[in-house]
């Protein structure tokens, strides 16, 4: 967090203020900016995630506007920002406000509950809606304009379970999850994936967010004889305490811990420190960034912000969402929402930081994930999993 953060917040404020004097002309001509809206949770309990995504948005807009032809026809992208907070009502309010400011597409939210809350409004608005929520049901709400720019929980859970059963040969797998939407949904997906192997979880322990002592949950799984625990945890503080207690209870000696994507993000690992050594994490992108695009993103971002970006859950997917929109507009030569939605459905093998983007019938764009292990505080690739579309 630095001067750049302040600068961009000011920029957002200015953009937001300026956008109230909306451009009247919808038939956008040459040179006219393309207004894309975004509603990250900048304040509230998901502020950390929201601010990362705001950074990703600014990064993406810069990337687009500094390439030849900008978005297309020399037209720049203009970012319009509203704060979704963590309250569903306020989030829908932010969306409505955004929609009143003549945007042609919306990027966000990441929270599946906010996505569901906004669905009725976005259905009517019929703009391309690039979301980052991983709950499987998000793409089953009956909206044709909703696109998921990350691997769903179905995919990451499947990959994680696959690794646990086939590679690590674990036989008695337990589930630990936070009881909010992400955790519960993830736990459901893990159970569904286990069924594919004719297995059942030997225990499923839920905990409310901000739990301070995980002794009961961990011990229950230990008593049930777990040789592996899949943990679906969203909050970095919870992750840190879980990993710490897992170690201090001596459970890391003969139980494998496999974490959901958020467990492996930079903040969580930094917070957990040494306790994270040796745990496996699912990541909803290909670890190791062996693609040019991914490597370029990481290094450029680091150069500008002096920090590692969060590829799966923060800056990375946001950047991909914007770039995909921009490239789609360029391909069809217009920013018309209806045509863009149609074109987005035809996305095939577009390369983003997260990997290959190919659109399926439900609007899912990303179908790969990878499993890594934490070594020396960094996630090292162990296996990639791609689900065929």
């Amino acid at each position, binding site marked *: 967090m630095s001067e750049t953060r302040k600068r961009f*917040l000011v920029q957002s*404020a200015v953009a*937001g*203020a300026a956008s109230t004097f909306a451009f009247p002309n919808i038939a956008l001509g040459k040179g006219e900016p393309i207004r894309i809206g975004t509603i990250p949770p*900048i*304040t509230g309990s998901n*502020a950390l995630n929201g601010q990362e995504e705001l950074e990703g948005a600014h990064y993406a807009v810069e990337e687009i506007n500094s390439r030849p032809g900008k978005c297309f026809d020399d037209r720049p992208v203009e970012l319009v920002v*509203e*704060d979704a907070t*963590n*309250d*569903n*009502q*306020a989030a*829908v*309010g932010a969306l*409505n*406000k955004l*929609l*009143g400011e003549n945007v042609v597409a919306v990027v966000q939210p990441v929270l*599946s*509950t906010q996505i*569901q*809350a906004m*669905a*009725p*409004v976005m259905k009517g608005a019929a703009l391309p809606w690039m979301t980052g929520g991983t*709950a499987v*049901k998000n793409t089953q*709400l009956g909206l044709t304009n909703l696109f998921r720019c990350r691997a769903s929980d179905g995919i990451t859970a499947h990959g994680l379970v696959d690794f646990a059963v086939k590679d690590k040969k674990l036989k008695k797998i337990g589930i630990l999850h936070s*009881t*909010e*939407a992400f*955790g*519960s*949904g993830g736990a459901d997906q893990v159970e569904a994936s286990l069924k594919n192997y004719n297995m059942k979880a030997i225990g499923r322990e*839920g905990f*409310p967010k901000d739990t301070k002592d995980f002794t009961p949950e961990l011990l229950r799984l230990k008593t049930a004889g777990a040789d592996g625990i899949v943990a679906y945890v969203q909050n970095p503080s919870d992750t840190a305490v879980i990993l710490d207690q897992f170690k201090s209870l001596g459970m890391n000696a003969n139980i494998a811990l496999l974490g959901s994507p958020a467990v492996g993000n930079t903040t969580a690992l930094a917070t957990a420190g040494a306790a994270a050594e040796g745990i496996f994490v699912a990541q909803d992108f290909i670890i190791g960034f062996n693609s040019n695009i991914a490597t370029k993103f990481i290094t450029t971002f680091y150069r500008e912000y002096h920090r590692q970006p969060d590829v799966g859950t923060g800056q990375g997917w946001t950047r991909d969402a914007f770039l995909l929109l921009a490239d789609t507009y360029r391909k069809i030569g217009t920013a018309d929402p209806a045509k863009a939605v149609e074109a987005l459905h035809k996305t095939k093998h577009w390369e983003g930081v997260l990997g290959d983007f190919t659109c399926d019938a439900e609007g899912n764009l990303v179908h790969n994930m990878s499993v890594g292990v934490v070594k020396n505080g960094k996630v090292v690739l162990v296996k990639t999993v791609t689900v065929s579309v």
Partner: protein
Amino acid sequence: MNRRATLVALLALACACIPFVLHSQYMLQVTDTALIYAIVVIGLGILLGFAGQMSLAQAAFFGIGAYSSAIASTTLGLSPWISIPFGVLVSVAIGAGVGYPALRLSGHYLALATIGFGIIVQLVFINARGLTNGPDGINSIPPPHLGTLALDTYQTYFYVAYGALLLSIYIAWRVKHSRIGRAFEAIRENEIAAQAMGINVTHYKVLAFVLASGFGGLAGGVIAHMTRFISPDSYSFDQSVIFLVMLVIGGSATITGAVTGAILLTFLPEFLRPLKDSYIMVYGAAVVVMVIFMPEGIVGLVRRLIPTYQTPPAAPMRATSNVADSA
């Protein structure tokens, strides 16, 4: 008195025209939400402002009404016109259930019991997945219909919210100016004296809870069919605190205060969006300042400044205390 009634009627009529004047979807949504929150706060105002019983569980009743109506209309297929009153009934039943044990408590004990109740209710919303669908919430809640017209825009739904609010104001007003209202006031001032005067304190305390839970439940049902998606995170202790703050800032002794506080504190965050992070901090500081300098809330302050509208001085916010403070 007649002049006042006419003014009120004119104001009500003017407000009814809002959807024709306001075209922004955003502003209409915020307005509809504000009207619904006003219903919740009126309920709290009856319990706390009139009867002096502290409750930090209003969000729980808001949630009970919302979930009951949502479940009834999605799984049982009932029309919202039926499921919303059903939500009120469920809420009232639970409110009475809470009201009885609450009798023996007052002051901090009551406050904490209601906090505990609220937290437990939210945990049930989150964990009773078979009933409430858990943290994923309930979506595809149907909008109400008038014949073939679906009331699914903020513009049309305004009238549903507005109608519910007018009904609530009317009921609250009737309660206030009746024996019930006077009994509440007596209990608020001094429970033991009230009992000595022959007021059945038990009966009225439960009634106060029932009214508060009823209004909360009504508001919950109404909002569920507007947002058409509900999830447990909206019904937290923090939300109960927000409702309390709305009441205190508006003015706890009057219905006008409750409505003013709700509307003001629903719109304010929207206007202060540019302040981003600092907004809530300012809000917290404002609460402290207001409680110190404006104990009767905004409405109390206005009333003191405009002599025409002075009613006999409402008691400033004080609730029965069980601290033996004989100083």
